[in-house]
């Protein structure tokens, strides 16, 4: 089928470009993103300044580049934290069932009733804004989502016959969890990771936009958008380029996630297709 391949290629290339840019951006940018130059402030895109400059004369292109690394790192680490903690909770709840499961589900539901933005806001208000605080806050806000998905995956695997076969053969619970349940969780978890990555990136941009992101002068794309607001009429390029960057990054992750889902799902369906 052509569709998933297209998704895969475009999505993978966009994400690949982002990672590349982020890696490069860590090392070298055309201009120092913090370099202010009042002579060239608020100038539109030219040959020298590909994306124009902001109100302090800083090169927007360099700023966008360096923001890409920060956004990537924050989102990646957040997803790692949320998934590690969430998956453990979800696996325990799903596998043990009974009263443990009930209690966990009610607690998770209660936390999920609040918009993640809010949870992060409260966390940040307590801890103060900083890159690590943001990561922990975001990570904590997404633990319930990861736990819920892991729980339902484990529940459905637990009911399969090959798990029952393990019980009959006499394997211990920990062995079953480790050797049988977890490896079969890889596909749904991969899909979860990509969609969570997209949501985290979006949320992080929103936070920065509200002024609660990484403190200046280091900036993420959201902060760049926030800075551009007062100059919307004068220097529209300041709003356009960072927005394009966020959109392309999100597009890449979403497409990659879709392609992965298409790829992983039919494979499992194909395995039990016989006799037409």
């Amino acid at each position: 089928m052509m569709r998933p391949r297209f998704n895969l290629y475009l999505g993978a290339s966009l994400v690949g470009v982002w990672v590349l840019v982020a890696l490069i951006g860590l090392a070298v940018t055309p201009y120092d993103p913090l370099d202010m130059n009042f002579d060239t402030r608020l100038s539109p895109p030219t040959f020298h300044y590909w994306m124009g400059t902001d109100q302090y004369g800083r090169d927007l292109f360099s700023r966008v580049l360096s923001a890409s690394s920060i956004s990537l790192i924050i989102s990646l680490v957040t997803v790692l934290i949320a998934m590690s903690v969430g998956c453990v909770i979800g696996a325990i709840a799903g596998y043990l069932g009974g009263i443990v499961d009930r209690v966990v589900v009610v607690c998770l539901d209660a936390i999920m009733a609040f918009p993640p933005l809010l949870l992060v806001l409260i966390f940040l208000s307590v801890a103060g804004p900083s890159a690590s605080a943001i990561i922990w806050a975001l990570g904590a806000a997404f633990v319930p989502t990861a736990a819920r998905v892991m729980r339902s995956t484990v529940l459905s695997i637990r009911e399969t016959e090959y798990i029952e076969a393990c019980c009959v053969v006499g394997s211990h619970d920990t062995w079953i969890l480790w050797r049988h349940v977890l490896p079969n969780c890889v596909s749904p978890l991969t899909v979860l990771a990509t969609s969570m990555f997209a949501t985290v990136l979006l949320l992080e941009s929103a936070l920065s936009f509200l002024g609660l992101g990484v403190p200046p002068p280091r900036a993420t794309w959201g902060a760049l958008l926030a800075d551009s607001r007062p100059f919307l009429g004068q220097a529209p390029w300041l709003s356009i380029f960072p927005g394009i960057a966020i959109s392309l990054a999100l597009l890449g992750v979403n497409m990659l996630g879709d392609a992965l889902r298409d790829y992983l799902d039919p494979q499992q369906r194909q395995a039990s297709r016989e006799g037409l």
Partner: protein
Amino acid sequence: MWQYAIKRILLTIPTLFIASGLVFICVRLLPGDPALLIAGDVQDEAALDAVRQSLGLDQPIIVQYGLWLKNMLSLNLGISISSGTPVVDLIVSRFSVTAQLVLIASAIALVVAAPLGLFAASRHNTRTDSVIMITSILMLSIPSFWIALLLILVFGVELKWLPTVGYVSADENLLQAVRFMIMPVLALTFVVLGQLTRMMRSTSIDILGKDYITHARAKGLSEAAVLRHHVFKNAFAPTMTLMGMIVGSLLGGAAVVETIFTLPGIGRLMVDSIYARDYPVIQGSVLLVGTAYVFVNLVVDLLYPFLDPRVKL
């Protein structure tokens, strides 16, 4: 049937209970002394103590919680520290603005997305389908606050057709209210449309591969009739569930769009009140948003049996 409904409703109570407890604890964790914030630069301890006493902050935590629970159940949510107005009035008026915004945006998105997704599924593997699919992924990948900025840029600054900030209630002046709301609604609709179309499309594609569709076609039904009578209803149910989740999360999460357009919505209120350490408002608004989320999901769950008769338990 009623048993299912009541059971479902009863299940939400422990959730809400824990949620309110969480709110209470989190709010108390916030650093900063509200007494100081109100009293300002006053050095006098006695004066500060008086302020604290008037806010009830000198009581032990358990007592405060108990008091708050009691008040909450009788819908007395206190007085806003910053503005002095009763919290209940404040959050209700703000919430209605957000609710208007979110519900209108979601309704428009649903009305467009459902037939669009169905159409794309019927043209699966053709160029039309690819176009719709890519467009919807694009739409859900673009942050709503950027759309908002772009809309302001085009319609507010360049063309000067619409006002960029502010709000007029529909009761006062309908035409003006619409003018102020168009761009915020559009900004939200854009993203929701992408999400709902994608869901409707993928569910419809799944259904089109099922045996009962083959059976319908084998009876000689036209493709249009198959789509209308057999696919739509079954594909709509999960889409509606998704919409419920989106609405629920937007009710609290539209803070950024509200900030950009300076709409007096509850999201913006929450953000502002966290900055101001306005405890009663934080508690009240967060509680309201959480309750609304649970309520919306409840409504969706209760509507589900009408769409899928198999669900009856």
